[in-house]
């Protein structure tokens, strides 16, 4: 005789069977979305169907993170989760944890959704970006210990400044556990204390780079107190991590260049400063010396010694001038005198005496020009060319020359 069971017992039995089934607990099912309903509670109810039939599905509000786009009827999707029994209706259905658009572009949708979400939260805002120190002494690196990225960073850093200490956190950068490993690496280096951290990996497919599009990684970068340079893939790959980082480098090599200053340039600029300091100092001294020279000249010019010398010069000069003026005057006077002598010669009484005239003067040497000056018996001096004749006036008689002539 078969046993009789209650509905609850059967439903419970079937549910247990489902739950013990390995495949049903972790299954991905593809199909077309129909009867899609977004419930106010946040749950999403929908069906997946194909040519052969349909399957009821639910995504609870708590799992909504697994849906990165707005799902609608007709979408071809892959829903992942577990198939289990809803005992109240005696119905089995898919409890979806993740729904992605089937085919290409589906990771990209998730990428865009997360990017927008984090951007809205302000995680990419410029005011949170920390400046990258110019002269880092220790540089942390979170990347795979194998592969080109770590070698590129080591080579570039070593070439630019071999005295910088690189510290690698060997991380898993793709596949299962990658995001946890990267987060751990960032946190470990941040705690240890380095000047800057490079987080990255070499190029790859969007799936390979996916860990750098995970929210956990973006958050770890955002929360890191040490400045972070991201360096994921090639120039064209921009991941969420790049947006969250303080500085985005297009490649791991470029990140090393940004993190490690070229020591030769630093030495050069120190040398430049030395030269500049010396040159400006020399200039200052030169200018002061010039000033000094100027005042020296000025003082020399104004010194009493110079004054005396100058006065003496002026004195000598004046003397010269006076003497030459004097000479000139004498010369002119002599010249005049000669002229007078010549003229006087013509007027000399002696020349008149030569012609038979004589000059008569009285005893007082006064020229006798009238009879009134002479009385009978007076002594007269008669001057002739070769001497004097003393004479006595015998007689004085008047005579009118004018009337005689007429």
């Amino acid at each position, binding site marked *: 005789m078969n046993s009789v069971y209650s509905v609850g017992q059967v439903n419970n039995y079937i549910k247990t069977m489902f739950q013990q089934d390995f495949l049903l607990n972790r299954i991905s099912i593809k199909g077309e979305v129909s009867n899609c309903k977004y419930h106010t509670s946040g749950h999403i109810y929908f069906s997946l169907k194909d040519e052969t039939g349909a399957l009821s599905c639910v995504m609870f509000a708590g799992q909504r993170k697994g849906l990165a786009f707005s799902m609608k009827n007709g979408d071809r999707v892959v829903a992942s989760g577990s198939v289990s029994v809803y005992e109240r209706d005696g119905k089995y259905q898919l409890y979806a944890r993740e729904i992605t658009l089937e085919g290409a572009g589906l990771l990209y949708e998730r990428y865009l959704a997360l990017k927008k979400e984090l951007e809205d939260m302000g995680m990419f805002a410029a005011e949170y970006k920390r400046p990258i120190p*110019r002269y880092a002494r220790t540089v942390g690196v979170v990347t795979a210990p194998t592969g080109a990225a770590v070698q590129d960073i080591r080579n570039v850093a070593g070439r630019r400044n071999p*005295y910088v*200490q690189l*510290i690698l956190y*060997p991380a898993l950068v793709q596949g299962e556990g990658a995001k946890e490993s990267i987060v751990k690496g960032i946190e470990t280096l941040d705690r240890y204390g380095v000047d800057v951290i490079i987080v990255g990996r070499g190029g790859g497919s969007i799936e390979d780079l996916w860990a750098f599009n995970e929210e956990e990684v973006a958050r770890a970068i955002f929360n890191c107190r040490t400045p972070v340079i991201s360096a994921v893939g090639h120039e064209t790959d921009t991941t969420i991590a790049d947006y969250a980082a303080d500085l985005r480098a297009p490649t791991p090599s470029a990140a090393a260049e940004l993190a490690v200053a070229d*020591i030769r340039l630093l030495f050069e600029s120190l040398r430049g400063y030395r030269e500049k300091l010396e040159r400006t100092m020399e*200039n200052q001294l030169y200018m002061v010396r010039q000033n000094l020279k100027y005042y020296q000249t000025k003082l020399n010019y104004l010194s009493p010694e110079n004054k005396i010398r100058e006065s003496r010069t002026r004195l000598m000069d004046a003397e010269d001038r006076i003497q030459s003026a004097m000479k000139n005057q004498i010369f002119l006077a002599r010249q005049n005198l000669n002229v007078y002598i010549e003229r006087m010669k013509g007027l000399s009484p002696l020349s008149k005496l030569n012609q038979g005239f004589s000059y008569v003067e009285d005893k007082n040497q006064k020229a006798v020009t009238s009879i009134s000056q002479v009385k009978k018996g007076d002594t007269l001096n008669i001057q002739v060319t070769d001497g004097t004749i003393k004479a006595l006036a015998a007689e004085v008689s008047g005579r009118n020359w004018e009337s005689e002539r007429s």
Partner: protein
Amino acid sequence: MADTEKTTQEPTIEESLKELDSIVEKLESRDISLEDSFVLYQQGMELLRKCSGKIDTVEKKMLKISEDGELSEF
């Protein structure tokens, strides 16, 4: 082990270079006294000396850090 000592009081090389810039600028100005020039020149030279001293010139090997912060050669 790497030298992880953080120089908190000492200015960084970057800060020193900035200060050098301002010293040179002051030195270049025309109306500075000779006495001040000497003081600035000395300050500048001292900064340069410190900067040079700060650049340690020991080549480093890449290190590896474990989850618990242990360092080893890579």
